[in-house]
């Protein structure tokens, strides 16, 4: 009887401990989830709702069911925009992440002028997007700095073969600093004993990095990849400014969000834009879910 009482007591206290843990967990995430639900989730649900209507700026005009979605499927411009966006993402993400990681590893080590280099590498991310874009337009001119150095006379941003690629290069460069910051933070969590052990084993810098540092950065990789991919799929500012809002020349800078903007703000077709937004969201969500599943095993700890 005494045994039963003890087991019963321990089970109960275990259960109540779990309940307490759950309560604390919910409590800690309450405010963030509140903000996200109100200002993010509600708007996307609202978008789903209005995507089934012809919706003007003052509200519902008529109900159209799935018409917006069937229109979307047949919309050349939409598929063009998706293609551009996927191409952009595939190009920018690897460069951005590799560059950021590389810089982080360099400025994490004991080199002289470390702070100076950190500041230098981070600087393009520090400046405001507007200033950077203005400067980029200036130096990518047909007779701007880049052409002065490379000796060509290509109008980088004015030619449909190079416009998007130029923006890709620009963004990869400016956001690599932020990626560097993320990896720098992640690198701090790796205890120095690990490096010492590797040094004792006689591992060189490269091997240490690949076999030890890189795998230990897994949560960092997940974070960086998710943010990088999502950010790239949402690219808007530079593509819009450079093309004057048209997505040109020759549709080359027409990204998904640029087209969404045109539909919502210039066409004032909120219903169709909502359908587009929902489709885009579904695309990004699927991409992230896949990443989550790929990295998931490393995280269940």
């Amino acid at each position: 009887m005494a045994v039963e009482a003890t087991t019963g007591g321990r089970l109960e206290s275990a259960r109540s401990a779990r309940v307490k843990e759950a309560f604390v967990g919910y409590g800690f995430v309450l405010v963030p989830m509140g903000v996200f639900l109100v200002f993010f989730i509600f708007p996307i649900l609202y978008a789903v709702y209005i995507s089934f209507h012809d919706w003007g700026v003052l509200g519902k005009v008529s109900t159209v069911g799935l018409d917006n979605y069937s229109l979307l499927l047949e919309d050349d411009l939409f598929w063009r925009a998706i293609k551009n966006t996927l191409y952009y993402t595939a190009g920018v993400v690897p460069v951005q992440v590799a560059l950021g990681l590389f810089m982080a590893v360099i400025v994490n080590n004991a080199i002289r002028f470390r702070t100076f280099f950190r500041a230098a590498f981070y600087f393009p991310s520090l400046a405001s997007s507007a200033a950077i874009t203005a400067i980029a337009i200036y130096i990518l001119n047909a007779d701007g700095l880049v052409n002065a150095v490379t000796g060509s006379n290509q109008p980088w941003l004015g030619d449909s073969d190079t416009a998007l690629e130029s923006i890709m290069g620009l963004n990869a460069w400016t956001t690599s600093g932020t990626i560097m910051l993320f990896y720098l933070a992640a690198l701090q969590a790796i205890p120095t004993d690990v490096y010492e052990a590797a040094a004792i084993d006689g591992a060189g810098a490269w091997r240490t990095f690949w076999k030890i540092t890189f795998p230990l950065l897994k949560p960092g990789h997940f974070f960086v990849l998710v943010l990088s991919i999502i950010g790239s799929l949402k690219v808007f500012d530079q593509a819009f400014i450079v093309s004057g809002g048209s997505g040109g020349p020759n549709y080359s800078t027409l990204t998904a969000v640029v087209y969404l903007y045109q539909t919502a703000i210039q066409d004032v077709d909120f219903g169709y834009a909502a359908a587009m937004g929902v489709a885009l969201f579904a695309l990004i969500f699927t991409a992230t879910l896949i990443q989550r599943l790929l990295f998931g095993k490393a995280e269940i700890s």
Partner: protein
Amino acid sequence: MKRRMRTVWLVAACALFASVLAGGAQSRSDVAAAPLAPDAVSGNIVLAHWASSPTETALLKQVIQSFERRYPRIQVTRRALDPYPDSMLAQFAARKPPDVFYVDSNVAPDWIKQGVLQPLNSYIARYKFNTKPFYPRLLSAFRDSKGRIYGFPKDWSPLAMQINTSMAARAGIRAPQTWAQLNTVADRLRATNAVPGGRPICLAADWARLLAFVYQNKGSFLNAAKTRATVNTVAVRRATEFYVGLLRRGLAGTPAQLGVGWCGEALGKEKAAIVFEGNWVLPFMAEQFTSVNFSNHPMPMGRQKGNLAFTVSYSMAKDSKNKNAAWVLLTYLTGKQGMRTWTSKGLALPSRSDVKPVAGRGPFLAAAPYARAWQFAPGFNRVMTVAGNELSAVFEEKQTIAGMLTKIQAEATATLRRGGR
């Protein structure tokens, strides 16, 4: 005696009936029950605008100050919005818009259709506002298909031809007046190498320039009633061939090819001798490229004279809470005095014939009788996106002119059929 009594009763009844009708009609109108004299109107209103340049903003502040001196009972809060359409649409949707604001002629058909602009006809009648001085084509840009007015043009500018005087002298040419002469002049500029490191003409891959040439060739995007698309026609094709032809033969270059952001900059950096820009290029040159001398001329003629009118209106919000005050501001800004102050620096041309522009604007004003407003039908923004992209593809030789026109025609027809959706 009885008959006279009956007549009196009849007249009284009629009078009573009439006054009831009138009273009912008054309460049904959007205007306040009694037409207030402008001086008696009071309130706080918001004026929203976009800031084209710091000089312009300063000028607007000045105009508002003189308005507040004239009508001390009305307080105006000025708000510069950027990005403008995003901010305006969000405020429209939240039913708390600014009272008076800019409306570009290009978006006017859409905003009118969305029902966010206040029709002004009843106010015009009530306050006996004279709209005759406005150039008719500019005022029509802000009418709907039934002729109701939704805004008054605050200024405008057509395109004109700017020619670099020293380059012209070097090549010994005079301002061309026809397409044929434009060709000859450009040939001559090239032959004499009058534009070292550039091209004789700067032409943008932009329908906001090409369309002027289309009009000069008796073509257009839409028919007069805006019910049919007329893009894929011989007239439009010939005009485009002329325009693109100048480029192909090396007589013209795009801004990107010339290493500039727009043709005005090409004029300033002397990368082109001839450009086609509006009044806005004058303050630009005066501020940034003071050493370059150039002259203004009317655009050359094709089969007829043709030009585009870029205009912006002051309009009132349908959801405005103080429409009388908004009306007083509206009519001051677009009235004789307000417009005179606004156009006194030459940043834009007056849209009223009773306000004279600053000196040297003759070539621009000459286009007033025939310039057509830069606008289409509701929902056409999408068509113009396609049109612009196709044109840039043609410029890059990735698309034929015929192919482009077919595509634009299809898009335009589909948009008209959808009723602007």
